């Protein structure tokens, strides 16, 4: 790749991911169709089959799906600089919007009508999380061990102060042990 071509790509990656960051609501998964359209259909930077693999990978490594996708695609298209440009692009709109909101939120919330609205919204957020939970459950819990792990984690988080970090580490180790024993015994 020539230097000039790379520079054009880096600039374009920044703009594409800036647009994706500014116009997708609802986080990572909602961004996937937009990323595909921009990267595969409009710019032909990555093949269709490859982008499917990329989405599978970025969802199973730690981190934010949208940011992971931006970094991976950026790296494939224009190397390290490409991944930096894409990551900054996708994060910038959130950063600006949320900074402005956070600066004024306390004043805003002292208006009685707004405080009442947020009382209602907190019940709505509960509903939103519960329905996301029901959707995620199908792909995440495949068997009885899955149910046991989920139930134990729920109990530990609800009745103790143990950090979620340790709980996740323990679950990963448990996953390794169950898979190992299963293979050994041929379940």
């Amino acid at each position, binding site marked *: 790749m020539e230097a000039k071509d790379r520079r054009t790509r880096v600039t374009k990656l920044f703009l594409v991911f800036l647009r994706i960051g500014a116009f997708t609501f609802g986080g990572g998964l909602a961004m996937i169709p937009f990323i595909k359209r921009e990267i595969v259909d409009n710019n032909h930077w990555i093949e269709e089959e490859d982008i499917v693999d990329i989405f599978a990978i970025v969802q199973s490594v730690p981190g934010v799906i949208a940011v992971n996708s931006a970094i991976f695609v950026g790296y494939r298209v224009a190397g390290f600089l490409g991944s930096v440009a894409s990551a900054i692009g996708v994060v910038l709109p959130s950063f600006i919007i949320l900074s402005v909101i956070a600066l004024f939120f306390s004043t805003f919330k002292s208006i009685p009508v707004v405080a009442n609205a947020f009382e209602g919204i907190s019940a709505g957020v509960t509903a939103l999380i519960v329905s996301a939970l029901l959707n995620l459950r199908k792909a995440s819990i495949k068997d009885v061990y899955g149910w046991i792990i989920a139930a134990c984690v729920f109990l530990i988080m609800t009745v103790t102060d143990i950090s*979620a970090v340790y709980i996740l580490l323990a679950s990963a180790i448990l996953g390794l042990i169950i898979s190992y024993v299963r293979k050994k015994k041929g379940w």
Partner: protein
Amino acid sequence: MLKLFFELLITFFKIGLFTIGGGYAMIPLIQQEIVDHGWMSFKETVDMIAISEMTPGPFAINSATFAGVKTGGITGAVFATAGVVLPSFIIVVLIAKYSARFMEKPVMQSALYGLRPAVIGLIGAAAFSIAMTSFFNVPVNNGTIPFAGIIRDIGSVIDFKAIFIFIVAIVASIKYKVHPILLIVLSGVLGIILYGI
């Protein structure tokens, strides 16, 4: 001040590193860390979730920025946001560079076999503690629920308005697939009507 910036960076690095499965999976970890550090009250983190849903962009970035501004102004937000993105950067660039097949390794798959249900348990616990603050008028600190207080004064602390809004919202979401933004607007309007009278 420098200590705070460093702490924001480290805390959000940890949050970024231990988020598997994106978005909602991050909620319990973010709430735990932010409330334990005393950066926000539990109630404020629920407001933050609502604001994140209503604004574009990924939840984790939105909450890192929000928490950063609340504690350390714009500079705080830069450190928090950089922190949450940094683990992704290191991991994803390494995978893109060396091996896209890394995730197919059995050891990764076995770890995920334990992690995926754990994430469901985490989100369930987050939903439960948010429901408790919403449905009962009792102060919740550090996300620990004061069960004894709730049982003692069950008649006076229960918030029927919130439970009503929850039922309307859950039916709208599951049965009619109402968009999350619309759902938040709807529950906001119901809140204004029910709590205003």
